[in-house]
C-alpha cells in the first residue's frame, strides 16, 4: 500500500491535484488564493523573508537593537519564550485525552498537537535567527553540560519537537493513505503522549530555570528561586487557554469541513474553562508566594509594581474568576474572553521576565528595531499559513472517511 501510494505521489498528477490542489486545476487554485487575508499574509512574508535572509547575511548588529548589555530581545522573549509556552496546548490536551481518558476532547486533540508542532518549529526558527552563530547549536547536543538549564532546554525542545512531529504523522499518513505506518504510529500514540508530558514538564520549567543564573538582573517582583514552577504552571494555563482560542477559531473558520457533524465546541470550551479557573487561581497564589519569598512588597507601590499587578491581578486573577463564572453558568463567551486575557497575561509575563524587567537597573532601555518586530510577525504568519494549509488538506478537524477509527 505504502509503495503504491508513493508511486502515485511521484508519478500520477491526480494525486497531486486531489491532495495538494484540493481537486482544482492550477489556474483555479491560484485564483482561489486571491483573498484579502492572503494579501495581508503575502505583504508580511514578502518583506519578512528577505529580512530574515538579510539578518543571516549582515548579522545581528545590522538587523536588531541588541547590545552587549541587552543580548536578549524579542526574538528570545517573544518568539522563543512566548512561542514555546503558547504551544503547551499540545501536551495539555494530549495528556487529557490519551492519559486522563477525557475522550470528549478528542475532537480538538489533533489541532492542538498541530498548533504545538508549528509553534515549536517557529520558536526554533526564531532561536536560530537570534543565535549569533546558529550553526553552533549542534554543540548543545554533544557538550554534556548536565548542570545547565540551557542544556536541558536544548535537548528537551529538540526531543519534544521530534515527538510532536511523530504525533503529527498520524494524520499525515492518513492523508497519504499509508495504512501500515499509520497503524504503527497510532499504536505508539500513548507512548508519545507520555514522552510529550515528560519533555514539556522538563523544558517548560527549565526555560524558567535559566533565570536562576541572573538573580540580580531580573526585577525582584519577577525573580524567585521557584521561577521554574511559575513557568510550568503558567504553561498549563497557556495550554488550556490556547486550546480554547484555537478550537473556537478553527471550528469557525473550517466549519465547512464539519458539515453534517455536530461538534459541541461550546461544551468543550466550558469544560476547559473549569480547568482554566482552577489552574489560574492556583497560579495567582503561587505568584504572590514569590513576592513574599522575595521580600518584594515595597516594589508593588512603584511603576514596576503596577506592571506586575496588571499581569498577575488583571490578567491572571480576573480571568480566573471569569473562567469560573463562565464554567458555572455555561457561558462559553465568558470563557473565551477569559482565555484571551490569560494568553495576554502569559505573553506579558514572558516578555516581562526575559525583556522588560530583565536588566531593570540598566539606564539604557532596549527597544526592538522594526526589523525584529517584522521578523517576529513573519514567523507567526508563517505558522498560521502553514496551519491553514495543513488543515485544508489533512484530517485534523474532519475525519478521513478511509480511516473511520482514526480520529
Amino acid at each position, binding site marked *: 500500500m505504502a509503495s503504491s501510494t508513493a508511486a502515485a505521489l511521484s508519478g500520477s498528477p491526480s494525486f497531486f491535484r486531489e491532495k495538494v490542489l484540493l481537486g482544482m486545476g492550477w489556474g483555479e487554485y491560484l485564483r482561489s488564493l486571491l483573498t484579502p487575508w492572503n494579501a495581508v499574509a503575502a505583504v508580511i512574508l514578502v518583506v519578512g523573508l528577505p529580512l530574515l535572509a538579510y539578518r543571516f547575511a549582515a548579522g545581528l548588529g545590522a538587523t536588531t537593537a541588541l547590545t552587549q548589555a541587552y543580548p536578549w530581545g524579542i526574538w528570545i522573549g517573544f518568539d522563543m519564550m512566548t512561542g514555546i509556552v503558547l504551544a503547551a496546548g499540545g501536551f495539555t490536551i494530549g495528556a487529557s485525552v490519551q492519559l486522563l481518558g477525557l475522550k470528549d476532547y478528542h475532537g480538538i486533540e489533533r489541532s492542538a498537537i498541530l498548533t504545538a508542532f508549528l509553534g515549536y518549529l517557529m520558536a526554533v526558527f526564531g532561536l536560530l535567527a537570534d543565535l549569533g552563530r546558529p550553526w553552533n547549536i549542534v554543540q548543545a547536543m554533544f557538550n554534556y553540560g548536565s548542570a545547565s538549564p540551557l542544556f536541558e532546554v536544548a535537548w528537551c525542545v529538540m526531543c519534544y519537537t521530534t515527538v510532536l512531529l511523530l504525533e503529527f504523522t498520524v494524520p499525515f499518513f492518513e492523508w497519504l493513505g499509508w495504512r501500515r505506518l499509520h497503524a504503527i504510529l497510532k499504536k505508539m500514540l500513548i507512548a508519545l503522549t507520555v514522552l510529550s508530558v515528560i519533555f514539556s514538564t522538563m523544558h517548560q520549567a527549565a526555560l524558567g530555570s535559566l533565570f536562576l543564573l541572573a538573580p540580580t538582573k531580573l526585577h525582584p517582583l519577577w525573580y524567585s528561586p521557584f521561577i521554574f514552577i511559575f513557568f510550568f504552571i503558567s504553561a498549563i494555563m497557556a495550554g488550556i487557554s490556547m486550546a480554547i482560542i484555537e478550537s473556537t477559531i478553527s471550528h469557525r473558520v473550517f466549519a465547512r469541513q464539519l458539515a*453534517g457533524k*455536530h461538534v459541541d465546541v461550546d461544551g468543550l470550551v466550558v469544560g476547559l474553562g473549569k480547568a482554566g*479557573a*482552577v489552574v489560574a*487561581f492556583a497560579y495567582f497564589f503561587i505568584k504572590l508566594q514569590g513576592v513574599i519569598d522575595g521580600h518584594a512588597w515595597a516594589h508593588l507601590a512603584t511603576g514596576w509594581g503596577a506592571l506586575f499587578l496588571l499581569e498577575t491581578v488583571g490578567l491572571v486573577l480576573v480571568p480566573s474568576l471569569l473562567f469560573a463564572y463562565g464554567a458555572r453558568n*455555561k457561558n462559553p463567551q465568558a470563557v473565551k474572553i477569559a482565555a484571551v486575557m490569560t494568553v495576554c497575561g502569559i505573553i506579558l509575563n514572558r516578555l516581562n521576565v526575559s525583556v522588560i524587567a530583565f536588566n531593570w537597573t540598566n539606564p539604557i532601555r532596549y527597544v526592538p528595531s522594526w526589523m525584529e518586530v517584522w521578523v517576529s510577525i513573519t514567523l507567526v504568519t508563517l505558522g498560521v499559513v502553514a496551519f491553514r494549509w495543513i488543515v485544508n488538506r489533512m484530517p485534523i478537524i474532519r475525519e478521513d472517511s478511509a480511516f473511520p477509527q482514526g480520529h
Partner: protein
Amino acid sequence: MTSDFLSIYPAKLMEYGLGVTYLLLFIPMWRYVQGGRRQSAEQAIRGRRDAERWPAVAVAAPWPSLGWFQVPAGVALHPGHTWARVEADGTVAVGVDDFAQRLVSPTRIELPRAGALVSQGESAVALGDGTWSVPLVSPVNGTVVAVNRAVADDPSLLKDAYGTGWLFKVKAPRLEADQRQLLHAQAARHFLDGEAEALAMRASPEVGQVLQDGGQPVDGLARALAGDAGWEALAREFFHTEKGTP
C-alpha cells in the same frame, strides 16, 4: 517599614498564612466552579434536549422513508447499526437496527451479562448462525442493568427490532456526551438510506437500488450476497467491527 519584611520570620509567617488562605479560598472557588446550581441546570438542559431528541412516546410511527429500512421516532442510531432509546425509567434501551437484523437474520444472539460495562463504539453483542458470529458495538457507555433473555431464546423476536427485539438496557452516566455521536431523526433516516444504497450497489453494482416497485430485501441478505463463507466479513464491514480494528 520595609525592614520588617526583610526579617525572615514575618516573611515565613506570611508564606504559611498565604498557603492556608489559598486552601481556604480554594474550597468556595471549587464549589462555585462545580456549581451548586449546575446539577439542576444540567438536568434542565438534558431534559430539554431529551425532549427534542428522544420524544417521550417511545414507540411511534416510523418516519416516512423511501428506503428499505425503518427507524422510529425517539430512537437514535449508532453508525455501527445499533440503536439507543431513553426509557421512561431513565435507563437506555439498546438494540440492533432494522438493517442489521435483516442483513444477518441471526439464529443465535449473544448478549452481555447484567452488570457488565459497555463502551460506546466497542463490541457489546453478537449476531450469528451455527458457524459464525458477528459483533456489534454499543451505542452508549454504561452499565448493563437488564438483558432481554426472551430474544436470546427466540431470535425471531428480533424482527420487531425496535420493540420486542430490544437486547439490553444500560444505566448511561454520560448520555449527554454519548448522544452527540449518535444519529437522530432525519440524520438517522438518511444514514439508513445511504446504507441501503451501499448494500444495493453490492447486489448489482451497475444499477444500484431499483426496487421502487415495492420490492424488499430478503432476510439474511448478507448470506444471499456473499455466501456462507463470506457473509461474516460483509456484515462486519457494515457494523464497523472488521477484524483487526481495535
